[in-house]
């Protein structure tokens, strides 16, 4: 006969406000098999857990039901407490009377009755719980980092410095990401290249880091500690081992007028190219869409001039499989662009700002390239239309961000600061010019950030105008900015030479597709979701996958670097053990009943079902049955639902347990 202990939590007032917890405790106490029931204000607190442990010992309890919040919140907490008191942790179950009851009901009487039912069901269920031994699985001590921006670089370096192998995969021909594009960085105005490129070189030279540039993730299989990742290495058309990076091919290439994406398409590059001179690796790539050889079969100049003979027009995409134990996702962000609005996107454009139509209306990243010493203008601020220096420049903040009507309601976080920086850079480069900024709020939380913003106004003479711009239009070679100053309460008009839009930060294109490959969740904007907004901000809900940088939400460089190091610390904690324990909630096959149809194998999303031969003593094959590899099984229960002969059971969620719950109702 079981001796079940039931513990009802008030959750402060969260539960007790709508559920009469004392009555629940009394009523449940009368159920057959319940030896002890009580209620307490905070069951998850230390005194609460002690209450559970004491009751187990004093009352000689055989099973425990904690009626409190969702098992997602505190199942682990209570199972640990139960284990500490000497019971198998899987003899403890949670009855969710908060999310499923008190939070969603108002009528106290009805909610109390429902809570009694929920707890009653769990009492019947826990009677059928079996002791489950924990499963240990080996940990592959190699990490995969997806995305070679500052987040990926920092995470890779931190993990590699601890002596673990790291595989860094980057989609573009060079690592560096958006930070490499920036001219100077707030709030200290140190040059981005100066602080970024040494780190890029560190990555290239690190003996523990294996770098795959111009590569993408094709497939991810496995689970925490044991992932198999297929990486597609796109054909570079240049043999990385032979190439010396001399650059002769680039100077001789006849295709010289291809817009360079790295320079926001205002600078030009050749068909065989490195995106920027400081690229890592310094190995060119042939852009096959624009290369004369690939278009017409003629030319081949690069091949002729290449001393080491590194040009290989025959190169094919290759697939590489790597085994890793943990994955850090750091795919970064993309800017909201109106000119290339994707079809079918819920995000609307800014027709009223003429972005994409008026040539001198540019975005913040384009301004960065103009201001950058290594940019297409050599660091001079020049208008894209006629190459003249703009004397009146208008910056508009919150373009795309905080615009519910356009489809984005979040704040992009960095624009206030980078616009302040832009006004300073402009003031340093164009002494007789005047910068104006239209803004709704200045959001500058961060160390030395507000001081930086104030400096742009008080010392660098930027004129900030609180109020949004309604419309921009071309008038001669000027752009008329129609705005308002809400502090004065009048309309404002400025005839500007150039307008810079602080466009919103969005997740990288294809972020959703990658998330589906990884099996991680994302929000409606396709930013990746962390496991807990406050307490687990760098982990995904999927075990073994960690987040770093702007792929999770808009972030500046200091925050990105902090998060990357935090993700690396999480990976290192995982790698500190040779084996890891995992929950024994896995499927088991009753071999006697299995007919070997392998319907389960077809539906298993994790590839956990294997074929097992059963032979007699003479070695004659009797039948082939399914076998679930407990190391791979994720405990989703799909096989259990599919099996036509009811021969698969999921431990912890057996048919017997489910039926007992239904019967209790």
């Amino acid at each position, binding site marked *: 006969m079981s001796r079940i202990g039931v513990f009802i939590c008030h959750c402060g007032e969260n539960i007790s406000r709508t559920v009469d917890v004392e009555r629940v405790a009394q009523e449940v106490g009368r159920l057959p098999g319940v030896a002890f029931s009580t209620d307490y204000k905070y069951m998850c607190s230390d005194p609460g857990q002690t209450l559970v442990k004491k009751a187990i010992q004093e009352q000689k309890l055989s099973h425990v039901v904690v009626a409190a919040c969702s098992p997602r919140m505190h199942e682990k907490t209570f199972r640990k407490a139960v284990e500490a008191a000497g019971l198998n942790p899987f003899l403890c179950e949670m009855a969710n009377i908060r999310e499923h009851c008190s939070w969603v009901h108002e009528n106290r009487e009805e909610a109390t009755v429902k809570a009694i039912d929920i707890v009653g069901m769990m009492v019947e269920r826990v009677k059928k719980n079996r002791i489950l031994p924990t499963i240990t699985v080996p940990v592959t001590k190699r990490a995969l980092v997806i995305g070679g921006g500052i987040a990926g670089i920092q995470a890779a370096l931190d993990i590699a410095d601890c002596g673990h192998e790291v595989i860094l995969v980057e989609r573009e021909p060079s690592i560096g990401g958006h930070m490499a594009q920036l001219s100077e960085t707030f709030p200290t105005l140190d040059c981005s290249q100066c602080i970024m490129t040494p780190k890029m070189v560190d990555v290239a030279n690190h003996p523990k880091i294996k770098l795959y540039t111009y590569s993408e993730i094709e497939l991810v299989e496995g689970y925490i500690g044991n992932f198999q990742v297929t990486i597609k290495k796109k054909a570079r058309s240049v043999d990385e081992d032979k190439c010396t990076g001399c650059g002769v091919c680039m100077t001789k290439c006849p295709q010289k007028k291809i817009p360079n994406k790295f320079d926001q398409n205002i600078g030009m590059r050749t068909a065989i190219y490195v995106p920027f001179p400081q690229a890592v690796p310094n190995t060119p790539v042939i852009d096959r869409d624009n290369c004369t050889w690939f278009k017409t079969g003629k030319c081949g100049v690069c091949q002729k001039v290449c001393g080491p003979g590194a040009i290989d027009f025959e190169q094919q995409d290759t697939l590489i499989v790597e085994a890793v134990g943990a994955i850090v996702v750091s795919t970064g962000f993309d800017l909201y662009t109106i000119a290339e609005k994707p079809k079918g996107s819920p995000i609307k454009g800014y027709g009223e700002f003429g972005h994409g139509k008026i040539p001198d209306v540019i975005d913040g990243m384009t301004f960065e390239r103009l201001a950058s010493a290594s940019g297409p203008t050599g660091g001079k601020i020049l208008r894209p239309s006629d190459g003249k220096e703009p004397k009146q420049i208008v910056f508009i903040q919150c373009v795309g961000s905080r615009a519910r009507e356009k489809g984005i309601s979040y704040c992009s976080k960095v624009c206030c600061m980078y616009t302040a920086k832009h006004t300073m850079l402009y003031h340093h480069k164009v002494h007789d010019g005047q910068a104006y900024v239209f803004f709704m709020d200045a959001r500058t939380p961060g160390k030395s950030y507000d001081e930086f913003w104030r400096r742009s106004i008080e010392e660098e003479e930027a004129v900030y105008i*609180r109020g949004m711009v309604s419309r921009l239009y071309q008038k001669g070679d000027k752009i008329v900015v129609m705005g308002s100053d809400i*502090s004065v309460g009048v309309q404002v*008009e400025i005839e500007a030479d150039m307008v810079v839009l602080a466009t919103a930060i969005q997740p990288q294109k294809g972020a959703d597709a990658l998330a589906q490959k990884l099996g991680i969740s994302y929000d409606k904007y396709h930013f990746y979701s962390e496991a807990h907004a406050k307490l687990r901000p760098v982990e995904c809900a999927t075990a073994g996958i960690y987040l770093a940088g702007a792929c999770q939400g808009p972030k500046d460089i200091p925050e990105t670097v902090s998060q990357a190091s935090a993700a690396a610390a999480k990976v290192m904690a995982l790698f500190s053990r040779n084996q890891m324990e995992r929950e024994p909630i896995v499927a088991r096959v009753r071999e006697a009943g299995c007919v070997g149809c392998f319907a389960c194998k077809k539906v298993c999303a994790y590839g956990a079902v294997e074929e097992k031969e059963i032979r007699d003593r003479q070695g004659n094959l009797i039948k082939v049955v399914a076998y679930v590899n407990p190391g791979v099984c994720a405990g989703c229960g799909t096989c259990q639902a599919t099996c036509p002969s009811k021969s698969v059971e999921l431990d912890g969620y057996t048919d017997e347990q489910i039926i007992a719950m239904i019967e209790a109702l």
Partner: protein
Amino acid sequence: MIKKKMIISQETMDVDFVRKVEALAGTSVRRCFQCGKCSAGCPMATFMEHPPNRIMRLLQLGQWQRVLAGRSIWYCVSCETCTTRCPNTVDLASIMDALRKLSWDSDGASKESYVQLANKLFLQNIRTYGRQYEMRLAAVFNVKSGQFLKDLMLGPKLIAKGKLKMFHSKNKNISEIEKIFTRIEEMRKKGDAL
């Protein structure tokens, strides 16, 4: 003027005027970030067409015509509540002083304000008589401001109570007073006084 659209450019933003105000007041105009605390505590704000924070904002945009055209600066009673409470240590009371001074000097926009006319006549009387001659002040003010009948009915009452004298009385040391005026004028010419 108040609601008229602002055309902002380097030409319309009079930076020199702002610098002058800053020099006179010994405080920064750019430092204000429009929190509105000055207007919140100003006892006269309800009478002003531009409350103190908006005066600051217009100054930041170099729109001195709008500031001087209004009467706000003359409604200011120099209680210095704004200066005491400003989180950015902007001495707004001094800025108001400076603006009144600059309004005095300019012949343009400030004509709208009768306060300035009254002040000018007040000082003229002092210079002429060595003390105030209210009857003349009121009469000349009414004529010059074109409001001939303004407060006319108050006259008999004030005369009856002995508050308004029909004829002026001259200060004995009128030459001493003239010296003060001359000295200030000379100092101004040299740039020693404001």
